[in-house]
C-alpha cells in the first residue's frame, strides 16, 4: 500500500515536472515573438504616448526663470527677478543648439519667439548689472518685446515637465494664460472636423464594402469548395498587390481623360468628364476596393460554417424564403458582419496614402495631419498627440465591439 502511495507521489512529481517543462518550453518558444512585439509594438506605442505629453525643453533650458515665474499671476508685469533669472539661464546655455531648442519650443507657442530668444542669446554675456531691475532694462533695450507679457506667459505655462497642451490641441482646445481650458479660435481649429471626416469616410467605406461583400461571400459559401477557392484567389489577388500600385492604377482609371470617363462618354451616358479624382468619390472608390477582402474573408468563413438546414427547415415550416433568409440566415452571420465591419472600419480610420494621392485637401483624414505635423511642422509632440487620439478612437471602438459581443453571443 505504501509502495503504491510512494509510486503515486513519484508520478505526481514527475507529472508536475513534466508540466513545468512544458510551460518552460512554451515560454521559450513564444519568447522571440513576445520580445519582437515588445520592441516593435509596445515600446513605440509607449514612446508615442509619452511624447504626446512630454515637454522637456523649457524646464531643462531655463529652470531659474521657471522658478522665478512660479508665483506670477500671468497678468501683471513679470517680476524683475524673472528677467535676471532668464539672463542667467541664457548664459548657462553653452551650445547654440540648446538655445535653438528653447527658441523653437517657445515659437510653437507664439510666433516671433524664435528671433526674440535667439537674439537675446547671441547678445550674451550682457555687461554685469547692479540688480534685477537693471537686467530688465538691458533686455528691454535689446528688444522692446521683452516688456510684453506673452513670452513670459509662454515660459510660465510650459515650465512643467509634462503638458496637456498637445492633447488638448488635438481636439481643438487650449489652455488660456490663466490656466482655464477654452476652445481654439475658429481659424486655427481643424482637428474635430478632420476627426469627424475620418469617421465619416470610414463609415461610408465600411457600409459600401458590406453591401458589396455580403452577396459575394454568400455566393462563394454556396459553391463547391474547389470553385470557391479559385474565386477566393481572385478576391485575394488585389490584397497581395502593393497599395501604391493599386492607387496609381486608380489614378489612371479615374482621371478626366481616363478609362472610366472615356467609356462613359463612349456609350453616351455623359458629355463632360466626371470629376472622379482629387475628391471624395475617388478616395471612397479606391478605399472600398482595397479593403474589400477584409470584409469578404470574415463573412465567408462564418457563412461557410452555417448549415443550410435551418433555412430549409424554416421554409418547410411555411416561412417565405425571403423571411427565412432575413430572420434565420442573416442573424447567424452577425458575427462575420461585426468582425468584417470592425476590421474595415479600424483599418479605414488610419488610411493615409490613398486619400493623400487620390483626394483633395478637403478629403484628408487624421493620418494626413499626423504626417503634416511630423514632416512639415517638425512638431512631433503634436503628431504624437494626434496619433494618440487615433489610438484612443480605435480602442473605444474595440471596447464597444466587446460590449456588443457580450450582449449578443452570436457576435463572439
Amino acid at each position, binding site marked *: 500500500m505504501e509502495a503504491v502511495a510512494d509510486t503515486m507521489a513519484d508520478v505526481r512529481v514527475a507529472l508536475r515536472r513534466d508540466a513545468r517543462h512544458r510551460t518552460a518550453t512554451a515560454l521559450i518558444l513564444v519568447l522571440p515573438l513576445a520580445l519582437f512585439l515588445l520592441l516593435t509594438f509596445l515600446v513605440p506605442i509607449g514612446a508615442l504616448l509619452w511624447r504626446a505629453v512630454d515637454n522637456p525643453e523649457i524646464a531643462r533650458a531655463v529652470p531659474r526663470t521657471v522658478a522665478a515665474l512660479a508665483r506670477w499671476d500671468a497678468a501683471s508685469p513679470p517680476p524683475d527677478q524673472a528677467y535676471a533669472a532668464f539672463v542667467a539661464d541664457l548664459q548657462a546655455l553653452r*551650445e*547654440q*543648439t540648446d*538655445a*535653438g*531648442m528653447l*527658441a*523653437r519650443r517657445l*515659437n*510653437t507657442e*507664439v*510666433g*516671433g*519667439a*524664435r*528671433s526674440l530668444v*535667439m537674439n537675446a542669446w547671441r547678445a550674451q554675456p550682457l555687461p554685469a548689472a547692479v540688480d534685477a531691475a537693471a537686467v530688465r532694462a538691458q533686455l528691454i533695450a535689446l528688444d522692446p518685446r521683452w516688456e510684453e507679457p506673452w513670452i513670459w506667459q509662454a515660459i510660465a505655462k510650459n515650465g512643467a515637465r509634462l503638458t496637456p497642451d498637445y492633447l488638448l490641441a488635438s481636439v481643438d482646445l487650449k489652455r488660456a494664460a490663466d490656466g482655464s481650458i477654452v476652445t481654439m479660435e475658429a*481659424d*486655427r*481649429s*481643424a482637428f474635430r*472636423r*478632420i476627426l469627424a471626416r475620418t469617421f465619416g469616410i470610414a463609415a461610408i467605406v465600411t457600409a459600401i464594402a458590406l453591401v458589396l461583400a455580403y452577396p459575394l461571400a454568400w455566393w462563394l459559401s454556396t459553391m463547391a469548395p474547389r470553385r470557391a477557392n479559385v474565386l477566393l484567389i481572385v478576391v485575394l489577388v488585389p490584397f497581395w498587390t502593393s497599395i501604391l500600385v493599386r492607387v496609381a492604377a486608380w489614378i489612371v482609371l479615374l482621371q478626366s481623360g481616363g478609362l472610366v470617363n472615356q467609356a462613359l462618354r463612349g456609350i453616351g451616358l455623359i458629355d463632360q468628364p466626371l470629376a472622379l479624382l*482629387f475628391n471624395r468619390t475617388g478616395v471612397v472608390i479606391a478605399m472600398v476596393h482595397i479593403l474589400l477582402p477584409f470584409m469578404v474573408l470574415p463573412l465567408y468563413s462564418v457563412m461557410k460554417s452555417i448549415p443550410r438546414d435551418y433555412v430549409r427547415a424554416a421554409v418547410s415550416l411555411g416561412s417565405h424564403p425571403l423571411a427565412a433568409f432575413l430572420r434565420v440566415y442573416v442573424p447567424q452571420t452577425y458575427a462575420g458582419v461585426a468582425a468584417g465591419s470592425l476590421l474595415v472600419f479600424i483599418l479605414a480610420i488610419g488610411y493615409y496614402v490613398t486619400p493623400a494621392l487620390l483626394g*483633395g*485637401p*478637403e478629403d*484628408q483624414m487624421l493620418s*494626413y*495631419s499626423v504626417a*503634416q505635423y*511630423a*514632416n*512639415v*511642422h*517638425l*512638431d512631433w509632440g503634436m503628431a504624437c498627440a494626434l496619433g494618440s487620439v487615433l489610438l484612443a478612437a480605435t480602442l473605444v471602438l474595440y471596447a464597444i465591439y466587446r460590449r456588443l459581443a457580450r450582449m449578443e453571443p452570436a457576435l463572439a
Partner: protein
Amino acid sequence: MKRLAALLPLIVIALHAHAEGTLTVVNFGGANSTAQKKAYYEPFEKSAGVKILPVEYNGEQAKVKAMVETGKVTWDVVEAESADLDRGCDEGLYEQLDWSRIGPKSDFLPAAVHACGIGIFVWSTVLAYDASRLKDPPKSWADFWDVKRFPGKRALRKNARFNLEFALMADGVKPAEVYKVLATKDGVERAFRKLAELRPHLQWWEAGAQPPQFLVAGDVVMASAYNGRIDAAQREGRNLAIAWAGGIYDLDYWAIPKGTPNRDLATRYIAFAVGPDRQAEFARLISYGPTAHKALTKLDAKTLALLPSAPANVKDALKFDFRFWSDHGEAMEKRFNAWVTQ
C-alpha cells in the same frame, strides 16, 4: 571555407572603403536634379574619384531631424531653403560650415553667406502660364486673381509660404510693403481672405515638377512655379511663359547635416562645386542665378537675361524674407493647413 573566412575582413574593409568613397547629396529633384548632376556631381566624381549618390526630396526637414536625433546620418550634403537652413542651424541640425576651406566670403553674394551653409543659386517663384492658350498675357498677381478675364483653374504650392505674399500683392500691396503688412495681424487676415477668394479656382501642387505638367496638360491656366522648371519645359519645346513682376526670389543653400561621417568629403564637394566654373555651367543648364560674382562674368547675355537676378526680372520682384518666415512660419503654416483641409 577557411580561405573565405580569411577573405572576409578584406571584403569588410573593401565595403567600408567603398562607403567612404560615396557622398549622398540631396536635391529638390526634377530638372534641378538633372542640372546639378551635370554641373556638379559628374565633374566632382571625376576629379575626386568618389561616387555621388543623389537623393531627391521636397524640403522636408523632418528627415534631417530624425537622422540627427537618432545619430544615423546618411545624408552628407542637403539642399535647403533659406528659412529651413536658418532654423536648422539654430536647432543644431546642420554643422557649422568651414568657410576657410570654401574661399573668401566676399567672392559670393552677401545673402549666400551663412554660418551653416552657402547659397548655391538664386531662384524665384513666379507666375507662369501657357503662352499658346493665353493670347492676352497675365502680368501680375492681380491678373492671377482675376477669374473673369482669365477663366479656369490656377495652381499654387500647398503651403502658406509665398502664397500669402502673392495674395497681398494681388490685393494691391506693393512688393516693398508686403512683409510690413504681413507682420500685422490685419495683414495676415487680409492675405488669408484674399486667398480664400480664389479657393474655388485652385489646384494645389507639392513637387516643383507639377506646375509645368499642369500647365502643359491644360489642367490650369496659370500657376506659381519655380522659374527653372518653366525654363526646363521651354527647353523641351513647351510654349510656357513667365511674368516676372511680383516673383519672390530666394537662395537655396547647401548644408551638412550634423554628425555625418563624411563631413570632410562634404566640405570638399561644396568647395569644389561653388567654384565659378561649376556655377556658370549650372546656370547654363537651368536658369537659376549663380551666387559667385565671378560666375556671372562667364555667362553670355542670353543666359543672363533668363536668370531671376537679371535687372529686368528683379525690378518688380520681392526678396523672400526668411527671418519673417523663420519666426512666423510655423503659425502661418498651421493656420494655412487648418484652412486648406476644411
